């Protein structure tokens, strides 16, 4: 069964050099264009089977994070359709949507509510989360006083404790120390056994080899390859060797209306 299905997904960012250009365009009622476009993702057709762990790999700026943001529902795709079955939790680029002046405890409750979990339910899980994060007395301090490692600890602890069906992790784990990384991968293995779907963005090929079922290689916003990691990882390493094969990040003029 499919947990996440992306069909013809594309994401375009309109790049305005200056804010006034947006206003000018409005005046011209879009007959004249003052922006350039950046296609972060194009023609993405992917299916993530339930129970499988997939690594998203690719050079910087290839669209990995954008894809996770789209699956998380934070960013709207410009084109295409996406089907999602189950609760999604995400750790996107450091922090899972923490308010810097809330304490760790308050942020955990806030996050729970955003995921549609009641306050009572969340209060019951607080100890478990504090335990896993293991950040001591900082749990009751504002998140702005945290080190980046502590933020990730709390984010990961929250994300896995709210019982996701689909877990998205964006490079975050690299910030944690070795002990915490081991703990996280143990947890990821446990979630795998429980039949959860996990999508992981990482630059660590060791993690891809030891914890993932398959890998997807992105380059320039397009899927270059999808399959077993022993097939895809060499392609990625090969891509890294040849700088000319890495897709250029260029803005294009908008298509004529």
């Amino acid at each position: 069964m499919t947990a996440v299905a992306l069909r013809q997904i594309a994401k375009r960012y309109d790049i305005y050099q200056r804010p006034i250009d947006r206003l000018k365009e409005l005046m011209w009622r879009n007959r004249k264009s003052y922006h350039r476009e950046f296609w972060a993702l194009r023609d993405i057709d992917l299916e993530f089977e339930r129970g499988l762990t997939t690594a998203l790999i690719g050079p910087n700026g290839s669209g990995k994070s954008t894809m996770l943001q789209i699956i998380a529902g934070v960013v709207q795709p410009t084109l295409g359709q996406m089907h999602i079955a189950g609760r999604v939790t995400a750790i996107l680029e450091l922090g899972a949507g923490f308010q810097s002046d809330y304490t760790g405890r308050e942020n955990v409750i806030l996050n729970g509510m955003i995921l549609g979990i009641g306050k009572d339910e969340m209060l019951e899980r607080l100890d478990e989360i504090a335990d896993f994060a293991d950040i001591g007395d900082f749990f009751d301090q504002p998140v702005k006083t945290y080190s980046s490692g502590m933020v990730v600890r709390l984010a990961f602890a929250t994300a896995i404790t709210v019982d996701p069906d689909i877990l998205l992790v964006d490079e975050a784990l690299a910030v944690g120390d070795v002990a915490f990384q081991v703990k996280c991968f143990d947890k990821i293995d446990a979630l795998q056994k429980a039949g959860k779907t996990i999508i992981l963005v990482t630059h660590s090929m060791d993690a891809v080899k030891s914890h993932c079922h398959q890998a997807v290689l992105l380059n320039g916003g397009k899927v270059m390859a999808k399959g077993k990691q022993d097939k895809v990882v060499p392609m990625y390493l090969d891509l890294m060797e040849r700088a000319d094969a890495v897709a250029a990040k260029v803005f294009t003029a908008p298509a004529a209306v």
Partner: protein
Amino acid sequence: MEKDKSKVRSSVSPQEPNTHQPRRIIQPQTGWVCLNLPELVEYRELIWLLAWRDVSSRYKQTAVGIAWAVIQPFVLMVVFTVFFGNMAKIPSEGVPYPIFNYAGMLPWQYFFSAMVNSSNSLLANSPLLTKVYFPRLVIPCAATLPPLIDFGISSIILVGMMIYFGIAPGLGLLWIPALVLLAFTTALGAGLWLGALGMLYRDVHHLVPFIAQVLMFASPVVYPSTLVPEKWRALYGLNPAAGIIEGFRWSLLSIHSPQSTAIICSSVAVSLILLLSGIIYFRQVEKDFADLV
């Protein structure tokens, strides 16, 4: 609550996906977006949490704390009484100028801070916008609530003044909840427009305090609405804050003139239009918020 728990509990079993978050389909939305207000009700706990957190953090690092809610309108009232009441001798419809002014200042202060608060709320909550999905309407709605606490606290001074000046409110007092609701919807409507526009053009954040200042002089805060020349009254009624203040004075001090009713009615109409169009506009642009932070 019991029911909620059982729903979450049942989802712990490894094979079944969570039942309460069924299959979702996400695709680009075009044209008229459905308002989907029930979703907002679902997230009411989140609204309360954000609002409560705003209240508790607002005066956290201040020395006199919540007293600021009283100090601001009270000092303004004293200043206005000296300059407009005593020096400029602006008429106050038969009641002492201080209470005339304060009864208008209260709803004005609420409207003003609720509007500013909700129009700034999206940027203030940008970490949430870029990291997690939830109905974005929650944020400006939650931001319109906290100033109600200030409003409630500064009302105590008004009660004291009414006792001091020996003014007893009439049955009009029963209209206060409706008038507070009117102030809330107007501030929210304005906040939705300004907040959403502010994401596209940060210029709006420079504009908001300026708009508020102009609006204050276009509202009967320091003067009675009877001073407005006949030919300007239709235009005057378009300012929703005017009707709110007029309504409060009528309800608390039984002050009203022939044009009060017209001003209040047009205020209700403008407020509703502002709120509805604000929600529609907000819904249309909210999908881009994460890209604009």
